């Protein structure tokens, strides 16, 4: 891999520490509906990557099919992207990561893409603790196919057509805690202040970092009765904490009140600072996170923020015990045992 700095710098533009302007992290113009929550999330991704000073070619963006899955076209235009097939992004991401462990993998999916057709792949990529950021832009419906209920639509939630959803919702956050995810967060497309540090923390997490982001579909599921509408979410939101992501080199200056603050140090030295809004919850204890979530649910609250993180998480490469060098850089010399060895093998078959 080669790291080449961008050539032209307009002196007027604000730049991050590796010399990129925010516009270097933008993509094509969005073709989503005006006001779609997904666009706000794209904005937060751009912001986070800019602030994290990520080299664009150091990140690969992947998605399935859906309005949400279109968004990778609308951010990070200098990164390779892969808009795969419906519900199967996790397997593409797995293969890509196995081939080159040195990139940051940012997967974007929808609730249809991940909770219906892709539920199996979602659970299994999580179980493998693949080092990636996995964002579900959760609008409780199938936007691109015109608004059918998805599996994350709450029971009783009313769609624009007026139909009443009869089924249990799949809570992707609860599910991923149950399945052993090492980084679990929920947020809201309208809460950029929370989203940006969450995305940054997720990118720093060395395993599977799951972000369930409620993202209203203004065209099909933003009506009264929908539990994924802007209004409903704003009314029922309950944050776990206020969140700061502090890259390694920065000095910690903010001081928090005793007892309500927690900080989690990540493998790369960076820190996540949480100003906890609930004293009974420890973000590094899965059981505590699950209980916290259950309780909020029974109060009809939508809990947001970082819910759980395993700061000691490894990743799939660690589980598989692969070499540090990206596998896609190995060539004949490292890979091919050569003729002499083949002769020995032949001998075993005589």
């Amino acid at each position, binding site marked *: 891999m080669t790291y080449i700095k961008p050539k032209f710098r307009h002196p007027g533009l604000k730049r991050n520490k590796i010399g990129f302007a925010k516009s270097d992290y933008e993509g094509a113009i969005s073709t989503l509906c005006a006001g779609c929550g997904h666009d706000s999330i794209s904005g937060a991704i751009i912001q986070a990557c800019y602030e994290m000073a990520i080299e664009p070619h150091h990140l690969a963006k992947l998605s399935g099919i859906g309005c949400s899955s279109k968004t990778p076209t609308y951010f990070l235009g200098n990164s*390779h992207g892969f808009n795969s097939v419906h519900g199967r992004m996790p397997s593409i991401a797995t293969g890509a990561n196995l081939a080159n462990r040195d990139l940051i993998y940012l997967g974007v999916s929808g609730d249809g893409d991940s909770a219906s057709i892709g539920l199996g792949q979602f659970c299994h990529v999580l179980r493998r603790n693949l080092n990636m950021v996995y964002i579900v832009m959760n609008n409780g419906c199938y936007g691109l196919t015109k608004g059918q209920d998805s599996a994350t639509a709450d029971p009783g939630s009313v769609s624009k057509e007026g139909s009443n959803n009869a089924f249990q919702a799949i809570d992707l956050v609860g599910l991923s805690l149950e399945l052993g995810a090492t980084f679990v967060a929920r947020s809201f497309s309208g809460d950029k202040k929370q989203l940006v540090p969450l995305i940054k923390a997720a990118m720093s997490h060395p395993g599977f970092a799951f972000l369930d982001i409620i993202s209203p579909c203004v065209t099909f599921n933003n009506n009264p009765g929908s539990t994924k509408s802007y209004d409903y979410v704003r009314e029922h939101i309950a944050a776990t904490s206020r969140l700061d992501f502090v890259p390694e080199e920065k000095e910690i200056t903010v001081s928090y009140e005793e007892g309500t603050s927690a900080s989690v140090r990540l493998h790369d030295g960076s820190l996540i600072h949480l100003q906890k809004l609930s004293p009974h919850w420890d973000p590094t204890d899965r059981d505590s996170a699950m209980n916290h979530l259950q309780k909020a649910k029974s109060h009809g609250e939508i809990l947001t923020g970082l819910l759980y993180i395993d700061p000691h998480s490894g990743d799939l490469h660690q589980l598989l015990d692969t070499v540090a060098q990206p596998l896609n850089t190995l060539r004949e010399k490292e890979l091919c045992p050569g*003729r002499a060895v083949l002769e020995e093998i032949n001998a075993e078959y005589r």
Partner: protein
Amino acid sequence: MSSDSVVNDMVIRFANVNGTGSASANDMFSKAIFRMGIPVSPKNIFPSNIQGLPTWYEVRINEKGYLGRRAGVDLLVGVNPQSYAKDIAAVRPGGYFMYDSTKKLHHEFDREDIHYIGIPMMRLCMENFQHPRQQQLFKNIVYVGALAALLDIEIEVIRQMIREQFSHKEKLIPPNFKALELGFEYAQAHYDCPLDIRVERRDNVGDHIMIDGNTATALGALYAGVTVAAWYPITPSTSVVKAFETYAKRLRIDKATGKKKYAIVQAEDELAAVGMVIGATWNGARAFTATSGPGISLMSEFIGLAYFAEIPLVLVDVQRGGPSTGMPTRTQQSDILSAAYASHGDTKQVLLFPSTPTECFEMAAAAFDLADRLQTPIILMSDLDLGMNSHMSPPLTWDDERRYDLGKVLNAEELEKLEKYGRYLDVDNDGICYRTLPGTHPTKGSFFTRGTSRDEYARYTEDGEVYVRIVNRLLKKWETAKRYVPAPELYQKENRSTQGIIFFGTSTYAALEALTLLKEQGMELDAMRIKAFPFDKTVEQFIEAHEQVFIIEQNRDKQFRSLLVNELEVYPKKLLTILNYDGMPITADTIVHQIKDYLLMYAHNGRHINNHQRKSL
């Protein structure tokens, strides 16, 4: 020793119960023949079950080197009373039925026209071994010993194999020797050894090896530089990735760190397995998956993505009896159409047809070059017979000068020089465009991979003209592929007959034998073996040069013939099919009979052989 004894030409079949350890004894038997320099061809006929059901192991011994299946059993080793009736019926008149005479054989099993050889296997073991497990296992060695006496196998060859096998558990050597001796001596004492069928050392195997196709395929992948394998278990392809893992563990560990220079993932299903391969090759690693029929069906959406988005993909299809779950432990060549046209929309996939383990190795290795070169799926069409049975095969070879052909991939320097990069620009006018890998350059060469229609710069478009341009270029690439895939093999310098025969894959063994048999009967046919789809010009020429062309295939629906008539402009009525689809490998006899039938009909009816109404034999 009777003077009219048949030497080095017989079929021995073992009738066992699965899960009883007979497999390794049977392998020992056929390997001993092989080590005596006599060509041999063993086939496992096993149930889709783990333990307790009938399983057979059939060995053809033929010093001329005919390695296809042959009907008719000369000697049957029956150690499974469950299947006695069927087994005894399978013995050819004048042949032998060897059985465990610890229990008396019931009268219902009497046949006038065969010989019975009772060896009290269980009794001998009970008398000589203590543990029930040992008694059970050594029964198998006892019958190998008896066979050694009856067929004149060099006992020292077997002894040597036992020594090698237990070189790490030496205390097992003496009891094995003992069991071998028990069988040998009992047979010697009670029967006129050797029988009128017997073996005799020859020098007819050269430097050949005995290996199964799946292991050879795995080695091909390993040598071709595969670093990522993703799979889901399914018979008969499971051993491909298992063998890859075995050799990778041995040959691909980084010396300094002890870490792996490969990654194998058992995926949650076939859809995920192929997705992982696509992700890995998109990212520049060599990767593959192996599956069988049901997996091909499940992978078909993803295969279409790889075809259209032009992502290299190597897929091994070890075919089994279909449709649906079908006959999971039987062989067929019946995924041809599904593979060739895998996925909805206009798609065509490159297929390779190996016919020996050596070719599995070579074509597996070639598949990765082809996939990278053509940026498209390459499907290696193996089958259960080829994949899971050991075949005598030339040794595997590798040229250390050989370099991987990674195809058209731009690096950072090349990108730096480019004015404007277009992922789907046909710069070289061969239908193949330049790809870039993620991570190459911070501001140049990135593009968006998608399964939707897009323009030359990988931008989404619904413009019909652009779409037509792109899919027509894929047709051009298809033409280019014809230059890269392995060319057919011709078995004559020039055509000598008005009749030709085309075959591929594992039918080759039987086909070559059939050709000789026909020749002996005065019928000479020109023969061509096809190794790949798309077909090159020579296939069309071969068909045009003959009045009739027989196509041998192991499926019901003449799927290979469909490819021929679809892709070439040949007259279908010329193409007569020899079919075999009962799940067992085709035999030379079947081919000879079907061809003779055709020729008879042909003689009767003049030019119009109506193949369409023929029932399969």
